[in-house]
């Protein structure tokens, strides 16, 4: 048959009773795409919608491509139903429904997170003529965003702007918070918002009945549903800027005098930073320490005054970084912060412990010899760090991390004792070292502010590299000093300002220093680096 009939020219009539009918007037199915992440309840939302439609006798179909995407990856659920239980001649319709959304032909897009919403818009699923977009603006950060050495989070503004432009109607808000507040999950809140848009031909009661029929966590789901419904009905939520808490104005008597001094001696623009800074430093060490801080800033204030720039950028930036540097993290500070009553309350709230439950807080410490020596007076610290039997023994003893239970008497008293070392801090090895570096840095800023103001600003900004504990701190300091060592070269270079910025950013790109090394190699500055080390 297959190969045995060469050059056959007449054919058996092989047409079965084909269904040929003129297409009837179009009744369109309603198309709904749900973009979520695995394990977020997108499937539940799809099931509710299918149930809602079938309850009215509407033919419905849903599908998804879960695969391994269930492991927190992007997942898309797709539902279609025909809003018609019987056609004109009374027969139940048997629609052919699609298994995937068509860009430009999706009635409703539900997104459970801001970036997933962006993905829906980018894929063209949201179109201005058709689509009602219901999106939660909460963030589940991508690995790239989370693992950045600084702030790798994307700017949400373009997402909202793009969605506004792309959708016929755009309902958005933080449905995750809404759900949490009502003790439920995001799918219930989004389902409520979907009902609230009125984009589906069902009443609120019908929506709620679908939740009841599913029979899981009905009461809390209905509460979250109601909250979502209201959000959709009352229009888009006002855009709340990311919560950056203002400086807590728990000014105490002692700080008042200092606040007045700041107001009198420093430009208003630096007020917020300086007030926050003196509180931090007074808390960190003492009022006198805060005064030392203001004293160190005086020359920079004068430089900005002379330039007549009312924004005083150099003063403000340096003030911020100097405050952070002067309150460098050490064992004493950590112990001090860990034992506070306010901290206990915060943890209690964060882990949602109830009144009748007992809460224990266990800290993970790994103080190594370096940190211990750092805390001690210079002579003692130096002694410990001297190579020899003592050092080896101590290094062995500190090779493992420790878990301290702060809520136990023993643990608390231990940390209380360490925190009490605050008084001796200015005599410590670390203090001497940090302040020497600090003064060096300030001197570089001051020296260059007159002739190379932009460069001075960049030098100030480099303090950003120095943060963290242990290896992280050591790495940051190494990079900081490397750039400091390159300053003469940078100053001699026409695009020195751009280069110092590039160096700083490269240093923040990866832990291994690959980017930084590559950059220096590109400029043929690698030898200088070695010299600087």
């Amino acid at each position, binding site marked *: 048959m*297959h*190969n045995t*009939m060469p*050059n056959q020219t007449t054919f058996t009539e092989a*047409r079965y009773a*084909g269904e*040929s009918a003129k*297409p*009837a007037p*179009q*009744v369109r*199915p309603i198309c709904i795409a749900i973009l979520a992440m695995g394990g977020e309840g997108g499937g539940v939302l799809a*099931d509710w919608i299918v149930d809602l439609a079938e309850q009215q006798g509407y033919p419905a179909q849903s*599908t998804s491509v879960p*695969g*391994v995407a269930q492991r*927190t*990856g992007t997942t898309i659920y797709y539902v279609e139903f025909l809003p018609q239980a019987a056609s004109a001649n009374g027969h139940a*319709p048997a*629609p*052919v429904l699609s*298994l995937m959304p*068509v860009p*430009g032909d999706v009635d409703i897009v539900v997104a459970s997170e801001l970036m997933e919403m962006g*993905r829906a*818009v*980018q894929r*063209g699923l949201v179109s201005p003529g*058709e689509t009602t977009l219901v999106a939660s603006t909460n963030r589940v950060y*991508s*690995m790239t965003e*989370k*693992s950045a050495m*600084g*702030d790798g989070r*994307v700017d949400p503004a373009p997402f909202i702007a*793009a969605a506004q432009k792309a959708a016929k109607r755009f309902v958005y808000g933080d449905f995750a918070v809404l759900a949490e507040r009502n003790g439920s999950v995001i799918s219930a809140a989004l389902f409520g918002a979907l009902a609230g848009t009125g984009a589906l031909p069902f009443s609120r009661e019908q929506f709620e009945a679908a939740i009841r029929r599913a029979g899981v966590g009905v009461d809390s789901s209905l509460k979250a549903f109601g909250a979502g419904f209201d959000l959709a009905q009352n229009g888009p939520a006002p855009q709340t800027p*990311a919560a*950056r808490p203002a*400086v807590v104005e728990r000014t105490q008597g002692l*700080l008042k005098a200092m606040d007045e001094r700041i107001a009198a001696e420093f430009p208003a623009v630096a007020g917020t930073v300086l007030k*926050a800074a003196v509180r*931090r430093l007074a808390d960190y060490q003492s009022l006198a320490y805060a005064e030392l801080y203001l004293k160190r800033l005086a020359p920079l204030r004068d430089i900005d005054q002379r330039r007549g720039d009312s924004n005083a950028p150099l003063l403000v930036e340096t003030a*911020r970084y100097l405050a952070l540097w002067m309150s460098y993290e050490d064992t004493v*500070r950590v112990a001090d*912060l860990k034992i506070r*009553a306010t901290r206990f309350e915060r*943890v209690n709230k964060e882990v949602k*412990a109830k009144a009748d439950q*007992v809460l224990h*807080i266990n800290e*993970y410490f*790994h103080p190594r010899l370096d940190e211990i020596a750092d805390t001690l007076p210079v002579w003692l610290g130096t002694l410990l760090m001297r190579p020899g039997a003592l050092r080896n023994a101590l290094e062995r003893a500190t090779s493992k991390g420790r878990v301290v239970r702060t*809520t136990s*008497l023993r643990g608390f008293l231990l940390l209380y004792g360490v925190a009490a070392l605050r008084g001796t801090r200015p005599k410590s090895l670390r203090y001497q070292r940090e302040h020497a570096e600090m003064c060096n840095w300030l001197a570089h800023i001051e020296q260059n502010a007159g002739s190379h103001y932009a460069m001075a600003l960049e030098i100030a900004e480099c303090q950003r590299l120095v943060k*963290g504990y242990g290896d992280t701190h050591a790495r940051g300091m190494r990079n900081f000093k490397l750039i400091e060592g390159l300053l003469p070269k940078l100053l001699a270079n026409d695009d020195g300002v751009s280069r110092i910025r590039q160096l700083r950013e490269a240093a923040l790109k990866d832990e*291994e220093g*690959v980017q930084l090394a*590559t950059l220096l*190699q590109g400029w043929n500055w690698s030898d200088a680096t070695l010299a600087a080390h």
Partner: protein
Amino acid sequence: MAERSFKKEVQKLRAKEGEVFAGEGILAVTKALLQSGVSYVAGYQGSPISHLMDVLADASDIMEELGVHFESSASEATAAATLAASVNYPLRGAITFKATAGTNVASDPLSNLSSGGVTGGALIIVGEDYGEGSSIMQERSHAFAMKSQMWLLDPRPNLPSIVRAVEKSFELSEASNTPVMLQMRIRACHMHGHFIARDNVRPAFTLADAMNKPSRDISRIVLPPASFVHEDEKINKRWPAAVEFIRREQLNEFFGDPDGADGLVIQGGMYNTVIRALQLIGLADVEGNTEVPLYVMNVAYPLIDEELRGFCQGKAAVLMIEEGQPEFIEQEVNTSLRRVDMQTRVHGKDFLPRVGDYTTTVVLKALVKFFDRYRPELAVRERLPEGVRAALAPRPLTIPVRVASAAEMASAAPSQASAPVAALAPVPVKVTAPVAMEVLDPVMDVHARPPSFCTGCPERPIFTAMKLVQREIGAHHISCDIGCHLFSILPPFNLGATTMGYGLGWAGASAFNTTETSRRTISIMGDGGFWHNGLTSGVGNAVFNKSDNVLVIIDNGYSAATGGQDILSSKAENDHRITNLPIEKAVRGVGVEWVRVITNTYGIATMRDTLREALTTKVSGPKVIIAQSECMLNKQRRVKPLMRKLAGEGKRVVRERFGVDSDTCTGDHSCIRLSGCPSLSVKDNPDPLRRDPVATVLDSCVGCGVCGEVAHAAVLCPSFYRAQIISNPTRLDKLSKRVATAVIGFLQRRLATRELSHA
């Protein structure tokens, strides 16, 4: 215990004649098997048919009632070999696995099966994982059907069609003595729909009948000269018989006006997509009624020449819509028409892209092209809904490449430190996007969100430890395997160079077996892959060839990536299977002497030290580390309800979770780079002087302990704390708490008097 339970849904399998069955595609397939009087079912899990295996496992009782034997096979090859039962006996049998990964594994028995042919209906249900959601290579089962001359069904994606295809497949198999493959596309597997049920059928001839009266026929065994006869049989007997059956039963379908001057030839699985495209240009109504001639190949292989030629008679042109490559059907269509000198023009991959998913948009574009050429009077472009037209319009668009991606590339390849920066620098890519451009302006920085390790996953700390070891003693060649552990190739771990297949992690490093260096390779294998074939292909092979390298077996107690099914070494008790057999014994059994078992993968320091030892020890010979901790997804499903129950009964229950003190966190995120847990995220820095976000632990934390271990092992920061929340505390709990609180409270009040903080 599988991830998803179908205990409730499987009751639908008892549906009687005439009842409406509503449910997922996989459930419908199971029902169709029972309606067909199947005697035995076997298979191996994997997306998208994992749920089919789970349904079958959960339906064990119902199947036993009907005398149906179900097996979770050791591998796809085992499953395919199971069909041998249908060679000599009139037993209907079905197997299922993921294509084409599974079909590759099953290739050997499938060749033998199809050579000798079958007496009872033999059905191979493959979950075709092509395109979106595909997790393994993008290949086609079609090639397997062609090379073994098995018939391939690709039914229209609606439940009545799928159910009919299952039933007819058995008949086709018996009519042509040939095994039949039924292809379930990924979306059809997970599709919710309806069909009218029929009664389940108890097989007339049972497994017991066969075992009690064994029979054999040497002419069915693949040995010369019988095997030469088989080839002749395939072409001259079974093929014509299949064609005859397919025509008689009208397995392929025709729609539209038979006298149309042009038409569409499509795979059954493409039907809904093609109809949607026709609906959008107003050439089909909502029920799929259309005047456009359609030849729907529910049988994708073999091609039925008469049907095709009949369809093409009087047509100037047809458009072949065949997803996937190479375009096997299109080539055959051309051959078939040219052989009889028919001049119908065949379009296909000249109008459609050679690669990728045939989405509705892709099909629509081809249809517009086709109708513009052959039916310009239809003016299909004008009929398009406005939104769709905008979406179709190809516009040049510059997609900005994120600068961060360069950094990722660099961190992914630290050994390439010397690569010129230009190679890593972001280059804007010009592409033609099928999306209206104005929509993309302003530009959103949308990141990919690939799947990754779950919250509290016991595998993550293994890779953290591996990262730490490599920091100490340098980079090693790492050979990966298939399984959840493959997520280690992604950020933040960036580990692994190749993955050659399921259970082939160690086999993939076989070449690196030389005495010229003391540096060893690391291979990864999951417990699923280990029992699938890794014990022989990897461990046995390494012993035999005197390998000096290191294998890490990730033993999480389940075939986790496919949905948590039980395997030989599962910790769970399973009424229908034997579990709890230790991997260590198997490894030692094939001759590995250096074996370390780590029973708590969360202990990063131990894990790191053991890895270091394996990589540096003077002992020669293969080294195997078995890293055991239960899959957290499964564990939580087991433990959470139990904890709730105990707490409800007033018993003492301790819940643990981690937290980060934002006033000591400096926003460096080393912890995230070493852990990557979904529960470990970032939030705005509450400190007004700082800008970088601080790390935070989300409420979803299950308190696995990795955060603390990482902080210790990598000497990170002291910001992590572990909270223990005790419900129903004992009297002793309360008393010691009261005493501590009295003293602590007093001291805290004293401290507060000198606090000048913002906190």
